[in-house]
């Protein structure tokens, strides 16, 4: 990661900001009226959300049969979306926690929105395992609780139970981490306002924060610990998600390479999504000074790296399959590339491996009109990666007699769109209601790259003698007291 450390003399925040400026800039965007751009985005997102909501309601009321799944392909778009969104979530934690541990101070201006993204993505992800149950109203059976059945517990050998715990933990910890970071900023918001709903909300949530440094002191150690916890957590979560497949016996699922492969993929897609969002937020919220070209550049490099890892994973899968000489294993992968779903495999490879290679060029990285579409394409590609893994492995497994095809129904498509609707609705609301940039943290790094206004005396000043004080004139000294 060393190449992400910015040279110290380069400033992180453009335009010589003072802490006051920071506060004003960030809070201003909250206090002003939403821009038409915001309204446009919100309306689109919200209508998508409604569409998805309708689809889900219909599906839960009618049956999973409203999806395109069948006796052989039991999982498809639903679980694809689940894995996709979990993946998205990971970048948030990466930026906020891992980069924090790595002392990547440039993260300060993006980590807030990244964390928000994590939480919203996990919410989207969480919806899918629920609604893809045959009997969603029984979902609580996945958790071990004392019951009148004797007691009948859950199957701790099942990856789905691991999932339930992993996702639950991940969501909780991310939320806490995010909220912890918000407290000082909420206090700032609170103190800028005298009254009104926002003020009430801020006063409620800021827990009476008063900037005491003793609190700051504990706060920092807690923050550090949470970051330390979140880091292995984020790795474990996608590892466990990958085990949903890796512990299965289906050729194309049953692979030991899955955990690292999935984690890398997750970070890959996540960073791409952060990039997309940040580029949007930057424009709509006028934060060019805080989210500078340099931030974009760093994230593009991150994309390049993870894309490389994912590419290697694709190659390795094929190699191991062919090397195994197991007819079913070999077939699974040849079928993946050349079978009926070859097209999706094509999309996956081109979007995830070929397109990102453009980012080798600084010109491309610095040209937002290139970066933006690339980031979108990567998201498309990563969605299809999950689709390929799930559907192409399932639709032709062991017995040719049960091979089938799969075609999603409009219901499934609407759910996919709906999840995006949910995500962006939440994100846009967040932009309006909460400071999108971690003000306290940014203030902390303002001086980076600027010479300090005040020179610290090398040694603590010797205590002035009485004479000196006399010389200054004690008379005026009393004035202030009263």
């Amino acid at each position, binding site marked *: 990661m060393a190449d992400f450390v910015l040279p110290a003399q380069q400033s992180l925040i453009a335009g010589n900001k003072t802490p006051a400026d920071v506060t004003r800039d960030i809070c201003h965007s909250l206090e002003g009226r939403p821009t038409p751009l915001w309204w446009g985005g919100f309306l689109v997102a919200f209508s998508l959300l409604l569409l998805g909501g309708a689809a889900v309601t*219909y599906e839960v*009321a*009618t*049956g*999973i*049969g*409203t999806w*395109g*799944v*069948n*006796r*052989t392909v*039991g*999982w498809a778009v639903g679980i694809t979306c689940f894995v996709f969104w979990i993946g998205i979530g990971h970048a948030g934690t990466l930026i906020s926690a891992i980069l924090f541990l790595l002392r990547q101070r440039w993260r300060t201006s993006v980590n807030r929105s990244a964390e928000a993204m994590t939480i919203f993505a996990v919410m989207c992800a969480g919806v899918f395992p629920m609604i*893809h*149950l*045959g*009997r969603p*109203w*029984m*979902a609580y*059976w*996945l958790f071990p609780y004392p019951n009148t059945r004797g007691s*009948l*517990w*859950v*199957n701790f*050998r*099942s*990856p*789905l*139970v691991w999932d*339930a715990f992993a996702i639950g933990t991940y969501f909780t910890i991310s939320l806490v981490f995010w909220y912890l970071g918000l407290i000082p900023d909420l206090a700032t918001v609170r103190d800028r306002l005298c009254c009104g709903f926002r003020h009430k909300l801020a006063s409620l949530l800021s827990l009476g924060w008063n900037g005491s440094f003793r609190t700051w002191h504990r706060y920092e150690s807690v923050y550090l610990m949470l970051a330390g916890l979140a880091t292995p957590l984020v790795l474990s979560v996608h590892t466990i998600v990958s085990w*949903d497949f890796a*512990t*299965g*016996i*289906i050729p194309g699922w049953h692979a030991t390479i899955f955990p690292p492969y999935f984690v890398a993929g997750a970070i890959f897609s996540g960073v791409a999504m952060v990039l997309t969002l940040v580029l949007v937020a930057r424009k709509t919220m006028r934060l060019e000074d805080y989210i500078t070209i340099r931030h974009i550049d760093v994230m593009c490099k991150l994309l390049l790296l993870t894309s490389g890892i994912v590419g290697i994973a694709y190659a390795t899968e094929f190699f191991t399959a062919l090397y195994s000489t197991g*007819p*079913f294993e*070999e*077939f699974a992968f*040849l*079928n993946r590339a*050349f*079978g009926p779903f070859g097209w999706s495999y094509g999309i996956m490879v081109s979007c995830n491996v070929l397109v990102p290679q453009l980012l080798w060029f600084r010109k491309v990285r610095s040209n937002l009109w290139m970066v933006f579409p690339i980031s979108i394409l990567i998201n498309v590609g990563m969605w299809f990666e999950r689709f390929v893994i799930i559907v192409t492995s*399932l639709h032709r*497994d*062991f*017995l*040719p*007699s*049960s*091979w*089938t*095809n799969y075609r999603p*129904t*409009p*219901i499934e498509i609407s759910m996919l769109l709906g999840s995006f609707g949910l995500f962006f609705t939440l994100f846009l609301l967040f932009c309006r209601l909460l400071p999108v940039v971690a003000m306290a943290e940014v203030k902390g790094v303002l001086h980076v790259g600027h010479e300090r206004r005040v020179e610290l005396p090398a040694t603590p000043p010797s205590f002035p003698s009485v004479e000196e004080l006399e010389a200054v004139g004690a008379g005026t000294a009393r004035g202030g007291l009263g």
Partner: protein
Amino acid sequence: MAEGKTTKYWKSWKEGPGASPLVQISRDEFPEPLDRPAEQFSRRSFLKAVGFTAAVATAGAGCSHAPVEKAIPYLIQPEEIIPGVSYFYATTCGGCSAGCGVLAKNRDSRPIKLEGNSEHPISRGGLCAIGQASLLDLYDSHRLKEPRLDGKVASWEEVDREIIARLAEIRKSVGSVRFLSGTILSPTLNAQIKKFLGQFNDGRHIVYDALSSSAILDAHQETHGQRLLPHFRFDKADVIASFDADFLGTWISPVEFTRDYAAGRRLDTKPLRMSYHAQFESRLSVTGAKADRRVRVSPQELGESMVRLASRLARFAGAPFPLTVNDSASVQDAVLEDLAKKLWQARGRSLVVCGVQDVGLQVLANYMNELLENYGSTVDVARPSLQKGGNDRELQALLDELKGGKVAALFLYGVNPVYSLPHGPQFAEWIKQVPLAVSFADRLDETSAVARFVCPDHHALESWSDAEPVLGHISLFQPAIHPLGRTRAALESFAIWGGQPKTAYDAVRDYWRENIFPRIRGAADFQSFWDRSVEAGFAVVSADPPKTTKFRTTALRDVAKTTVASDKFSLVLYPKVAMLDGRHTENPWLQELPDPISKVTWDNYACFSPRAAQRLGLEEGDVVRVETDAQIGSSPALELPIFIQPGQHDQIIAVALGYGSKGTERFSDIGPKWLFARPDVGEDGRIGKNASPLLSFEDGTLQYIREGVSIRKTGKRHTLASTQTHQSLTLPGNVPLLGGKQREIVRETTLPVLVADAKSPSSEPSKANGLWPPDHPYTGHKWAMAIDLTACTGCSSCVVACQAENNISVVGKDEVVRHREMHWMRIDRYYSGQEDVDVVHHPMLCQQCDNAPCETVCPVLATVHSAEGLNQQIYNRCVGTRYCANNCPYKTRRFNWFNYMREDHLQNLALNPDVTVRSRGVMEKCTFCVQRIEAARIEARRHDKPIADGQIQTACQQSCPAQAIVFGDLNDPSSRVAKLAQDRRRFGVLEEFNFRPSVNYLALVRNREGAEEKGKESQNHG
């Protein structure tokens, strides 16, 4: 099925002991058994209650009260009925004219399952798909519940009054009375009809089978001077030559023949003995799929090959061969020579059968059997079969009479000529002109719709009757349930119209006293004989054989050689295993049963060979117009989707009969209703198309082959609902590198190879221990199954038996198209080879793996292993993640995508009260009929003796005519299943993965030279 062993079969309560003054009441309360046993009904709506409502209730406060449920006991409980206990009534199957014996499993005074009667002389244990499904017809809400007059519901009194009046007129005026029926097996009914018709000076009984074997009878008229259908004994035949006779699928008496055929191929004898079977046919039939040597011949060449074979046999016999043999060399010569040798060596133990409706060819077949001295051994004319008595000549005569309007009264029994005759529409007109047209149909089919009087007969399970499928083997029908509607047995109707009213019971009993009882030697009194017969369900009595003359060679005649233009096809109309002539077309179980060969459900279609389809540039599902030329009067045409059928002759199109009848319109709402549901029926609102207009009469026989048919594309498409879309175990070609790779899923070998490595040890189940310690020794029972692929013919009776036993829903065409059929037991069908394909039928059900991949992944423990090695599925615990189904390597798990169970109160009486009805959103699968295991366990504990081997029979096993399935306790070394687990042919599917399946398969063996290239191929994947 413990009850089966312990309870003696009851006669009906009419005979029952309790003759108290209150018996009358007990009869009164039977008309509505429907409302009585509350618990059975609630089973149906199980879990649906646990749907949203309960979820909400859970959220709500704790003290919610379930709805009040009433329990309504009998007022007077019939002595022999204990609620919740099953009894077995021995009766006879009314599904077709084969007359197999069945045991009706009765629970709370209604039949809930039909099982083969293992003692019955004809079927001896098996029951076909149709027999299994005929239970559902009993509870069919579309059955007529009362008589009809002029299409309006009427009372029996009115109908009788009218009919009797008209009959009286006819007696005065010399009007001709015609009774048109299918083959009637019941001697009682036949006698009564005879008696009835005798009252008129011109009364005749015409028998007509929609699937006619008339030519065979005619041929014997010519060769043996008696119009009879011999009783073929496949069990005695070591060499079988079949010319287009689908005797394992649909020909005459499939269950019996399958049983006999399998008996000749058991492979458990030392030295190994296996019959040799050569099949000459144009389309790929179930029988052809089993053949050791299958020769694709066009219908035209068929006669040619028979002549060539006959001539060779004559040469061996040193008899002069009267027919001209075209001596141009033919590709088949080698085969025929070889076959002739085999036949000749097996003189008296061989059998030549021919299924073609051509007297000339049938005579030729008789000639060959005569040369081979098969008469008296494998071809029994002393006790001939009565299962097909149709006479197409007389039918034609009747048609002419009707056309001329000469018929005063026409009775139609068990036939639907308007639907199944080539000129159906005219027939409808003619019936309308008949002054007294009476139909006994139990539903408003094409014919009864136009008949003035409809006097619905009982369902076979509702009435007393009898059947004589083979001379001297007489089987009894007895009611298993009080008639559900105001129907009336034909026997009673005739008795009334004949002037001496008599109940069916008395009619049968009296007939037996007078005609059957005398024919039994050393019988004490009639009552005990009757009791025994009713209990057993049949009686075997002596019968004086029909007087046959010695073989008349003069009957031999040259076979007409027709040739078809290369651009024309010849159309082969064939019956499907499930549909036959379409008499069960309204039975959803049979409609959804995949055809054993094509695996297509809910449709008929035009089968083309791959090459033919390629030549015409046709894709599967393209709708083509099948056009006949006008040589025979009318030139009907038919629009059908095409299906590409490997192994079929390139010059023919095969189309199934029995579809497109008016009754199938009911299936428009069979499937679940939702936003994007597609119709379950065709554009015309029916299932498939009726092909019978393409039938034709030629020299006095109904022809199922029509020459000079041309094809025109319509550009339309029609989706076929197939349950299997990949046919081969070799990898698809579009996947490079490994194009021709074989999958080790089904093992196949040849007899010589098997004999050769007779010494080699059996392939033990893999003992590989995997990663973890064996924590789970199965100390008690260890249930397991063995399936003999050599015996299995793919007849699919197990599929329907399973469906009936386990309350498996019907899902409708659209769902099948979406690959959501629910069958727990399916029969995979694979092809190998290119042009002349070999067929493998591979019954596939939950393998009850000891290391079940499905169990590990279920989060809520809804599927776990029992202490007896069962892979349990607990429906009420399942939340429906479908992870288990994904992870099942055999894909035998089925998911309830919708609420498939319908609120059809009548039909749901067929549900098995011991098996939970699954609601939407839960996974289900085969559990080795665990309800039967539990029942046996309880029974065994009561009489505390251990469960004997064979005491538990799974539904599929019980129903299998070939006895290919064996179920039992692997821990009991004496059990059959344990022995078969040591068999040399044993293999487990995908066992290299160490799933430890509890189902052992016995490799498919073909009696064929290992040297043949097919043999090689089968070895290297066998």
